[in-house]
């Protein structure tokens, strides 16, 4: 595939567009491509740097990843001082200065007010967080859309799962999804009885098979909601090249997309086991693929930072103001404006909120920035029984199967539901393994007092020990649903907190309510039961070390006792401009159009009133495609000629005359 055409930021400013799309991640790229296909003139403004769309640029990202000590989601992408990204490295735990006080510091792009850390990052670069994502694309369950009506917590959607089914299917085609539709139908998340995914499911890992053999059919009762869940290891739908299914699309089959920036290159997943942060062969889908399909109607400009949406006449907006910079290392920039009939914000939930707040738009409901969500993720880790032999961690995609039963059912009324991922990457997320295994086995780094440790292991003993303790690593990653809470929010304070270019930094207030915490307790019990069933030795602990709590630490009273828990951010930022039917209580309608401004859309996970236990990207993509259709109709209406004579040309070409 070839790289998408990009233009210098200055050149982009000289025209009037049908639509300006802010952000070149999944949502923005899908909307832009669709509108371009329909014949509309579209400008896409990406704040971050490009580069990864070329093959040398992509390889540079790979070397950046190899060189990183902490191989976190943003570690493959170079820091950009002009357009900073929030990073999981920004937070560090500290002893609370008072009981119940803040147990962390944060010194990155986010200003974190607490009481708990918002541990979710994203990437401000071409492709956005769609560059470092895992590629997990489970659909949401019908119950997930109506948690208030069904279970008495959170907020409901103005849409049903049935409304979204055709758009889910389209999103799965656009992204290139491999999965087992029959199994997903069994869970109730796919309605169409004839649907198959574009590609056959990605093969399960040996860990999946090892767990399935021992867990399937076993019943675990969690004590909080009282749910007796029958365990079943289920394949994860993934946006990752696998084997195309000839039965797809009524027998027409599916042709997978290859790598961006290198013609005729691309293949199935080859098991690099580094999907997060970077797939070296681009078997993992990314927005670069969508951008490679932009036609000549779409103009893409990188290093173009939208600072504000500009008001037009009446309640409308007339375009955006943006600044371009040449060098990511220096925030020297020049201002431009781009005018358009439609403005679509697709810059990430937190960035959309920040832009709306700074532009003082969509303010009627008072909900902009509120209801910030994520999937607080608990990690549990264990060593499988020595007698079973190694389980083969650090191979294949990050996770290929999960246990789904605690996502559904009435128990979610009492505690948040959760999805259990079986990690294929050992203890890496929890402990920094396998590198930290080497350090621990050697005893390098000294004691807590800084003295040299006395007990070395070297040579053949070291080799054997590591083979045993790395080869048997099991880790569960338990994503817990967090519901909309207006107190979890993004705000700005331009007088106090700006980034180097002068844009306001997001200020985050974040906490987990009792419903989530009860879900965490239930999840901890289930993890323990799973490890017991596997005959594995549980090494999970969330307790402070020498008084310092792990990041995301909290205590919760359960069954009259105080228990230690900890969570990590999932990278699933959502809910800052949630959709609804009432302009007084929601920011956008079901088409992601702001209630206050008829030609301003805010697209992305920010629109979601609830996120269930599904990784949200595929739902966001479905919403984006639905919005793109709506924007196409909207533009057609705007450009309907008022002249009485029959127009000489078909609609897309006739539009300029009608533009005011």
């Amino acid at each position: 595939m070839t790289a998408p055409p990009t233009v210098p930021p200055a050149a982009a400013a000289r025209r009037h567009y049908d639509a300006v799309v802010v952000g070149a991640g999944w949502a923005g790229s899908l909307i832009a491509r669709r509108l371009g296909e329909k014949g509309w003139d579209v400008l896409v403004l990406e704040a971050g740097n490009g580069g990864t769309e070329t093959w040398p640029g992509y390889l540079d990202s790979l070397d950046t990843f190899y060189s990183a000590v902490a191989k976190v989601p943003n570690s493959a992408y170079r820091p950009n001082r002009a357009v900073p990204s929030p990073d999981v490295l920004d937070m560090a735990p500290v002893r609370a200065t008072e009981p119940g006080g803040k147990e962390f510091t944060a010194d990155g792009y986010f200003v974190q007010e607490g009481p708990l850390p918002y541990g979710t990052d994203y990437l401000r670069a071409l492709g956005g967080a769609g560059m470092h994502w895992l590629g997990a694309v489970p659909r949401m369950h019908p119950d997930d859309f109506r948690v208030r009506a069904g279970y008495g917590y959170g907020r409901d959607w103005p849409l049903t799962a049935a409304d979204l089914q055709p758009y889910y299917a389209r999103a799965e085609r656009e992204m290139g999804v491999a999965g087992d539709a029959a199994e997903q139908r069994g869970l109730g998340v796919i309605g169409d009885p004839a649907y198959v995914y574009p590609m056959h499911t990605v093969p399960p890992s040996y860990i999946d098979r090892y767990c399935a053999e021992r867990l399937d059919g076993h019943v675990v009762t969690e004590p909080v909601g009282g749910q007796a869940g029958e365990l079943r290891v289920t394949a994860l739908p993934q946006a990752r090249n696998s084997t195309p299914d000839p039965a797809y699309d009524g027998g027409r089959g599916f042709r997978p997309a290859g790598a961006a920036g290198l013609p005729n290159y691309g293949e199935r997943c080859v098991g690099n086991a580094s999907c997060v942060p970077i797939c070296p062969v681009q078997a993992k889908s990314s927005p670069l693929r969508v951008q490679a399909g932009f036609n000549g109607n779409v103009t893409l400009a990188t290093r173009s930072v939208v600072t504000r949406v500009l008001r037009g006449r009446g309640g409308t907006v007339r375009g955006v103001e943006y600044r371009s910079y040449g060098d990511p290392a220096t925030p020297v920039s020049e201002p431009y404006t781009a005018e358009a009939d439609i403005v679509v914000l697709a810059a990430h939930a937190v960035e959309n909120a920040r832009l709306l707040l700074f532009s003082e738009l969509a303010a009627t409901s008072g909900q902009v920035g509120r209801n910030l969500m994520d999937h607080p993720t608990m990690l549990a880790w264990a060593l499988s029984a020595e007698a079973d032999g190694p389980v083969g961690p650090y191979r294949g995609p990050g996770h290929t199967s999960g246990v789904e039963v605690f996502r559904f059912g009435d128990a979610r009324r009492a505690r948040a539901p959760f999805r259990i991922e079986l990690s294929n990457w050992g203890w890496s997320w929890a402990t920094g393994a396998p590198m930290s295994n080497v350090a621990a086995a050697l005893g390098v780094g000294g004691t807590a007092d800084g003295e040299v440790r006395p007990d070395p292991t070297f040579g053949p003993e070291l080799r054997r020990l590591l083979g045993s303790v790395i080869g048997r690593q099991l880790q569960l990653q338990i994503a817990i649903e967090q519901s909309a809470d207006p107190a979890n929010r993004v705000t700005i304070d331009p007088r106090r907190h700006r980034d180097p270019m002068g844009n306001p930094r997001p200020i985050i207030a974040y906490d987990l309510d009792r419903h989530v915490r009860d879900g965490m307790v239930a999840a901890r019990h289930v993890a323990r039961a799973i490890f017991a069933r596997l005959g594995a030795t549980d090494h999970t602990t969330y307790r402070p070390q020498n008084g310092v709590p792990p990041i995301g630490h909290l205590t919760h009273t359960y069954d009259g006792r105080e228990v230690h828990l900890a969570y990590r951010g999932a990278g699933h930022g959502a809910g800052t401009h949630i959709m609804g039917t009432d302009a007084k209580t929601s920011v956008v309608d079901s088409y992601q159009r702001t209630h206050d401004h008829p030609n301003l859309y805010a697209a992305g996970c920010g629109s979601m009133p609830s996120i269930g236990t599904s990784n949200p990207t595929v739902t966001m993509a479905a919403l984006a495609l639905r919005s793109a259709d709506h924007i196409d109709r909207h533009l057609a209406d705007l450009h309907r000629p008022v002249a009485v004579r029959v127009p000489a040309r078909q609609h897309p070409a006739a539009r300029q005359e009608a533009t005011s």
Partner: protein
Amino acid sequence: MAISADVREFVRSCVPLTGFAEYDLYGTGMADLYLDTARAQVGEEHFAAFLRAWIAAVEEGEGAAALSPTHLEIARAVTYLWYTGAWPRMAPAAHAALRREKANVEFVAAPAAYVEGLVWRTFDGHPAGAKPPGYGTWSVRPPRPRTLAEPRREAGTDAPAEQAAEERAAEEAAVPAAKLPGPLLARGTAPSTVMTADDVPGDEI
């Protein structure tokens, strides 16, 4: 390019540290870089003194027990470098004793060094993000773990038969917590600064 005498000596002395044969160590292509890195990190003279002490300790059959605490920490750092491609944070006491002028922080010696880390080979794996084994290979049951005798044979440090039998029994026993990593406190915690599991209180839900 010919291999220098210094590199030969360095690689030979790293065999008993790493448990990998000279053949494997040369096979990483990293020997020069690692010798340069170690010298730059602890200083030429300190490193030469360490190497003399270590070679003597091996020749006398005493191994690591004969090393001073500072030399022991250098031995660990060099082994960590071979296993991970990164120079670790050293015990602060050793850092101070060496009067190092470098920041005592972990860093990756080179992008290619990460890819050549020996740790992946201990469990028949491949470095995350490189040397991919191919579509669907992750479904295959991994090979049985090595006994102690196998790497010993490779490294040329065979133990007497009766000792080997005792050790086989010990291999089956649980791994001491002091040899396992505890949880990362923060995502940015470098692997060489993760506390061992024995320093972390257990969970009691």
